C-alpha cells in the first residue's frame, strides 16, 4: 500500500511524532494508502517554512510574469501526473471516473487561465489620475501586493480542484501557502506537492500538511505568522475559523454551505428542466455545496415534472466509481451515509412524501461501500428541516409554488445564498427571477457550471469572498496606495497648515490654459478656432437679453455654416436644471462645440454643458473638485460683461435647490479653450450692470491678493486688473461706447479671473454667494458692498498686499505706515464705488437686517472662506461685517 508523507519546505517528511492514518476507498471501504498525520508541531514547521519563504522574497519578489511562468511549469507537471491524479481522486473520493477524469484537465486549465489573466489583465498597479482630494495635489497610485502566508483548508468532495482554486491565485499573487486537505482525501494534494517540487517552486512556497482539522484548525487560524485563511467547509466550522482569525485580523475567505433553489418555471423546456434538476441534485451523489437540492416547481407542471423526474432518477446507475458505466458513486464515508439516512428519516417524520430512493444500495460485485439511492421527497414545505438544512447527499426536495413571486420568496427563505438555477424558455423572465434571488451564482437553463474567469462565492451564511477569476487574485492581494505630493514643502502643504498659525501657502501652480484673443474685431478669429478645435457643429448659448441685442446673431454670422443653433433659455444665477436642459438641446443638435455668448452665468452654463455633453448624466453628478481626467467638449467663451472672468477660470457656479446654496464645479479641464474679448460685445452693457460686474472683477483681484494662496504671478495680474478698473470704470460709466475703455475692462476681468483661478477668493465671496442664493442679489453688487469691510477685517493678515492694492487704486502711500496704506485701500474702493454710483449698503439692494444672523451662518460654510487671509471660525465676526455693510 502506498504511503504519503507531508510536504514541508520542499521536502517530503514524516510527521514529527510519527503518527499516520489510513485513507480508504469509499466504494469498497478498503484502505488504499497511509498518510503521515500532521500534528501541531508539523503545522508550526510548515507555517515557519512558508513565512521564511515569503520574507526571503524569492517568490514574492518575482514579477507577476515570472511567477506566472513558474505556475505554468507547475501546470505542466500536473498534466504529467494527470492519469495518476484522476485515478487516485476517483478511488479516494468516490467521484465517478467520468468526472474524476476531467479533474486534471480542469486544474491545468485553471492554472493556465489564471496565469494568463494575472499577466495580461490584472491591475497590479493602477494610476489614480484624479485623487479626489483637491487640497493635496500630486501623484497617487495603487499597487496590489501579496498578503503573505496563506492557509488553504480544503474539503473532501473536490479535493484536487478546490486545492487548485486556492493554490493558483495565492501563488500567482506572490503569497506562500500551507494547504490542509481533508483527512478523508489528502492524496491528490500530496501528488500536487510532487508536481510543485518537480516544477521548481522554491522551497517553502507551497506546503501540504494532512491531519484532523479539530487538531490543526486552531493553530492554522490563529498563528501570528499566518496572514490569510481560505476555508471551504461547513458553516459551523467556518464561523469558528472566522472567529479565530479575527483575533489577529487575518484576511478570510469562507466558502460554506448552501441549500440552493433550482426554480422550474411553468414555461420551462420540460426535458431540459428534468435533466437540470437531476444533475443539480444528484451530480457527485449530491455532495456539492452548490447543489440545487430544493427544486421549486410551478403548480401548473408539478405532477408531470415529478413523474418524469422520478422515472429519470430511477434510471441512474449507482455503482463503483471506477466503473465507467456508473452515474453515481458512493458517499464519502459511513458518517456521511448515516447523516443522509437520518435526514431521510427526518423528512418522513416531518410529513414529506418519499417518492423514490431513501435507501442504501448494494452494488453487484462489491462488498461494502457507502452507496445510497437517488432520493426524491415531494410535497416538501420550505419550513421543514430537510428544506432548510444542507444534507450533502443525493436527496432532492420538491416544493410547489404558484407564481414567480412565490418562487422567489421561497428561494430566498434560507440562511444560505450560494447558488441556484432557473429553467424557463423565456430568457428575459428567467433573468428577472435570477436577479431577485439573493445568491452568489445563478445558472439559467443550466447547472453546476464553473468557469475559470467567473467568480464563485456566497451571499448570507454561505460565505465571504470569492474564488475564481480576477476576483480571486484580488482576494489574495492587498492594496497599497502611494502618494507623492506635487510640492515637497511644509510651507506649501495646505493640510499641515491646520496646525500652524501661519496660514500663507508659499508654493503655487500656474495652470491657465485658455487661449485669449482680444481687440476690436477679435470675433473673426472664431471661424479658425472652431476648426483648430476639431469641431464642425457649434451651439451658441446665450441669454434672452443678449440674444435680443443681436449679439448672438453676430456670432452666428461669424461661424457661418458651423453654427447649428442658438439656445437662449439661460437666466442669471442658473441652477442645475438649466444646465441639463441646455445639454439636452446640445445633444439633440449633435453639437460638438459650445460657444457661450454672455455674462458669467451663460459662460458657467457653457462649462457645465461641456462636461455633461462629454460624460453623460446630469450636472449634479459633477459638482466636484479636480476630478476630470480628459479634455471636455470644446468651449469658446465670448463675454458680454467685464466681471466674472469666467471666460478663463476653472470654476462654474450653480444654484442647487437641494443644497439650498450655490455649489461649484472646480476643474482645470472646464476652463474654456478660447476666450474672445471683443469690446463690441460689451458696448451695450447697461450702466448698472457695467458697475456691478466691474466690482465683481475688483473683488476677484483684491481677494486673490489677500488669499493664503496668493503668489507673484497672481499678484501681478491682480494689481494690473485693479489699475485698469480704477482707470477705466469711470470712463465707461461716462461713455459706454468707448471701446478702448471697454476692452481694458474686459482685460481687467480676465486678468482678475486668472488671478483667482490660481489663488482663489475669500470671505467677501462667501458673504456675496449667500446673498445671491438667498435674495438673488446680483453677485457683483453684493461683492462690491462687502469688499471694503472684508479688506479692513483682513488688514492685519494681508497688510503688505493691501498696501499694494492701495497704490494700484491711485493712493499715494509714500510716507504712510503700511497698515494705514492697507486701510486706505478699502477707502479707495469705497471712493470708486461712490464715483461710479455703485450701491453702498446692503439695505439699498433689499437685504433685511433681521436675516443677517442666518446669512452669517451660511457664509461661514462657504468654501471660499477657507482661503481668506484671516482665519474665520466665528459666525459673529461675519455678522458684524454684514451689519457694517448693512
Amino acid at each position: 500500500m502506498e504511503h504519503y508523507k507531508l510536504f514541508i519546505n520542499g521536502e517530503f517528511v514524516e510527521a514529527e511524532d510519527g503518527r499516520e492514518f489510513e485513507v480508504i476507498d469509499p466504494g469498497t471501504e478498503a484502505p488504499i494508502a497511509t498518510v503521515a498525520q500532521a500534528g501541531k508541531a508539523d503545522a508550526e514547521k510548515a507555517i515557519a517554512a512558508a513565512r521564511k519563504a515569503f520574507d526571503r522574497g524569492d517568490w514574492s519578489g518575482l514579477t507577476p510574469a515570472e511567477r506566472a511562468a513558474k505556475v505554468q511549469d507547475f501546470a505542466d507537471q500536473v498534466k504529467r501526473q494527470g492519469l495518476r491524479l484522476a485515478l487516485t481522486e476517483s478511488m479516494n473520493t468516490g467521484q465517478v471516473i467520468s468526472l474524476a477524469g476531467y479533474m486534471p484537465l480542469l486544474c491545468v486549465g485553471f492554472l493556465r487561465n489564471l496565469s494568463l489573466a494575472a499577466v495580461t489583465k490584472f491591475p497590479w498597479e493602477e494610476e489614480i489620475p484624479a485623487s479626489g482630494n483637491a487640497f493635496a495635489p500630486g501623484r497617487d497610485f495603487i499597487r496590489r501586493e501579496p498578503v503573505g502566508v496563506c492557509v488553504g483548508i480544503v474539503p473532501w468532495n473536490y479535493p484536487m480542484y478546490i486545492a487548485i482554486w486556492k493554490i493558483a491565485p495565492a501563488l500567482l499573487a506572490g503569497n506562500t501557502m500551507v494547504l490542509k486537505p481533508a483527512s478523508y482525501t489528502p492524496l491528490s494534494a500530496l501528488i500536487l506537492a510532487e508536481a510543485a517540487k518537480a516544477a521548481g517552486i522554491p522551497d517553502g512556497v507551497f506546503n501540504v500538511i494532512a491531519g484532523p482539522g479539530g487538531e490543526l484548525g486552531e493553530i492554522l487560524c490563529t498563528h501570528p505568522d499566518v496572514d490569510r485563511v481560505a476555508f471551504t467547509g461547513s458553516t459551523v466550522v467556518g464561523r469558528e475559523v472566522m472567529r479565530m482569525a479575527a483575533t489577529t485580523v487575518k484576511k478570510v475567505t469562507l466558502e460554506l454551505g448552501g441549500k440552493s433553489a433550482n426554480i422550474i418555471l411553468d414555461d420551462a423546456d420540460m426535458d431540459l428542466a428534468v435533466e437540470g434538476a437531476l444533475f443539480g441534485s444528484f451530480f457527485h451523489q449530491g455532495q456539492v455545496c452548490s447543489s440545487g437540492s430544493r427544486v421549486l416547481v410551478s403548480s401548473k407542471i408539478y405532477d408531470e415534472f415529478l413523474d418524469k423526474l422520478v422515472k429519470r432518477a430511477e434510471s441512474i446507475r449507482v455503482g463503483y466509481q471506477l466503473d465507467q458505466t456508473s452515474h453515481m458513486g458512493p458517499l464519502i464515508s459511513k458518517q456521511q451515509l448515516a447523516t443522509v439516512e437520518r435526514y431521510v428519516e427526518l423528512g418522513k417524520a416531518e410529513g414529506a412524501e418519499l417518492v423514490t430512493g431513501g435507501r442504501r444500495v448494494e452494488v453487484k460485485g462489491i462488498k461494502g461501500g457507502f452507496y445510497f439511492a437517488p432520493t426524491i421527497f415531494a410535497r416538501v414545505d420550505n419550513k421543514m428541516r430537510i428544506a432548510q438544512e444542507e444534507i450533502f447527499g443525493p436527496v432532492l426536495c420538491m416544493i410547489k409554488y404558484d407564481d414567480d413571486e412565490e418562487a422567489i420568496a421561497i428561494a430566498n427563505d434560507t440562511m444560505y445564498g450560494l447558488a441556484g438555477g432557473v429553467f424557463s424558455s423565456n430568457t428575459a423572465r428567467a433573468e428577472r427571477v435570477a436577479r431577485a434571488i439573493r445568491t452568489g451564482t445563478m445558472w439559467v437553463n443550466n447547472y453546476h457550471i464553473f468557469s475559470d474567469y467567473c467568480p464563485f462565492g456566497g451571499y448570507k451564511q454561505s460565505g465571504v469572498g470569492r474564488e475564481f477569476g480576477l476576483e480571486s487574485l484580488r482576494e489574495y492581494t492587498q492594496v497599497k496606495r502611494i502618494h507623492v505630493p506635487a510640492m515637497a514643502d511644509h510651507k506649501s502643504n495646505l493640510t499641515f497648515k491646520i496646525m500652524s498659525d501661519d496660514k500663507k501657502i508659499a508654493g503655487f501652480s500656474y495652470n491657465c490654459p485658455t487661449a485669449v484673443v482680444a481687440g476690436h474685431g477679435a470675433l473673426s478669429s472664431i471661424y479658425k478656432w472652431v476648426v483648430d478645435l476639431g469641431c464642425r457643429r457649434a451651439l451658441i448659448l446665450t441669454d434672452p437679453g443678449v440674444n435680443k441685442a443681436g449679439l448672438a446673431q453676430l456670432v452666428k454670422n461669424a461661424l457661418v455654416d458651423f453654427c447649428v443653433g442658438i439656445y437662449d433659455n439661460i437666466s442669471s444665477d442658473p441652477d442645475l436644471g438649466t444646465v441639463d436642459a441646455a445639454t439636452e438641446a446640445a445633444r439633440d443638435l449633435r453639437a460638438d462645440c459650445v460657444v457661450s455668448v454672455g455674462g458669467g452665468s451663460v459662460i458657467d452654463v457653457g462649462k457645465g454643458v461641456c462636461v455633461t455633453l462629454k460624460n453623460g448624466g446630469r450636472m449634479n453628478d459633477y459638482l466636484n473638485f479636480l476630478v476630470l481626467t480628459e479634455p471636455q467638449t470644446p468651449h469658446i467663451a465670448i463675454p458680454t460683461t467685464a466681471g466674472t472672468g469666467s471666460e478663463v477660470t476653472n470654476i462654474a457656479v450653480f444654484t442647487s435647490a437641494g443644497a439650498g446654496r450655490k455649489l461649484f464645479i472646480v476643474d482645470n479641464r472646464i476652463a474654456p479653450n478660447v476666450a474672445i474679448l471683443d469690446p463690441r460685445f460689451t458696448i451695450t452693457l447697461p450702466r448698472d450692470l457695467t458697475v456691478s460686474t466691474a466690482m465683481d472683477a475688483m473683488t476677484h483681484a483684491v481677494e486673490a491678493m489677500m488669499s493664503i494662496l496668493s503668489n507673484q504671478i497672481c499678484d501681478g495680474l491682480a494689481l494690473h486688473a485693479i489699475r485698469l478698473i480704477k482707470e477705466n470704470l469711470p470712463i465707461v460709466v461716462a461713455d459706454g461706447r468707448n471701446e478702448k475703455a471697454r476692452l481694458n475692462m474686459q482685460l481687467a476681468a480676465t486678468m482678475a479671473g486668472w488671478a483667482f483661478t490660481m489663488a482663489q477668493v475669500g470671505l467677501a465671496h462667501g458673504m456675496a454667494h449667500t446673498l445671491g442664493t438667498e435674495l438673488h442679489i446680483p453677485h457683483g453688487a453684493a461683492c462690491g458692498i462687502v469688499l471694503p469691510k472684508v479688506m479692513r477685517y483682513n488688514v492685519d493678515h494681508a497688510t503688505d498686499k493691501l498696501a499694494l492694492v492701495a497704490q494700484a487704486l491711485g493712493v499715494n502711500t509714500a510716507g504712510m505706515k503700511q497698515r494705514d496704506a492697507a486701510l486706505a485701500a478699502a477707502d479707495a474702493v469705497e471712493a470708486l464705488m461712490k464715483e461710479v454710483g455703485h450701491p453702498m449698503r446692503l439695505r439699498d439692494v433689499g437685504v433685511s437686517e433681521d436675516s443677517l444672523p442666518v446669512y452669517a451662518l451660511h457664509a461661514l460654510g462657504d468654501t471660499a472662506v477657507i482661503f481668506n487671509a484671516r482665519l474665520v471660525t466665528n459666525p459673529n465676526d461675519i455678522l458684524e461685517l454684514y451689519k457694517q455693510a448693512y
Partner: protein
Amino acid sequence: MEPKASQALRSLLANKGIQKAVRIDLRFSGCCDSSLSLYLDDISESDLTCELDGLKFVIAPEIYQLAGQVSISYVDEPGKKGFVLRPSKTVGEWDGFGVCDLARRAEPGV
C-alpha cells in the same frame, strides 16, 4: 457532561418550558462535514437513553454505533457560545471545533 453544560441545558429547558428529552443526533451544516448536535425531541422506542444530572438524553442506536460515547461541554466566550460535543469515535475531522445550540428537532438551525 461538564457541570457548566448541565447548568446551561437546565436553564435552556426551563426557559423554553419544554418537557422533552435531549437528543444527540447528526446534523449537517454545509460543504463537507457533519457533526453532532443537540435537539429537543420525543423518545422513540428504539432509542438508547441515559439520565445525567436529572436530564434525559437519547440517541438512536445507529448514531451511537457511529459516534460512541459523547462528552458535552459548554463555552461562553466573546463570539463563541454554545455546546461542544466530542464523540469517542470520529464523526468528522472537525469534531469539537464548533459549537451548537439546543434546537427542537422539528426546527431548522445551525
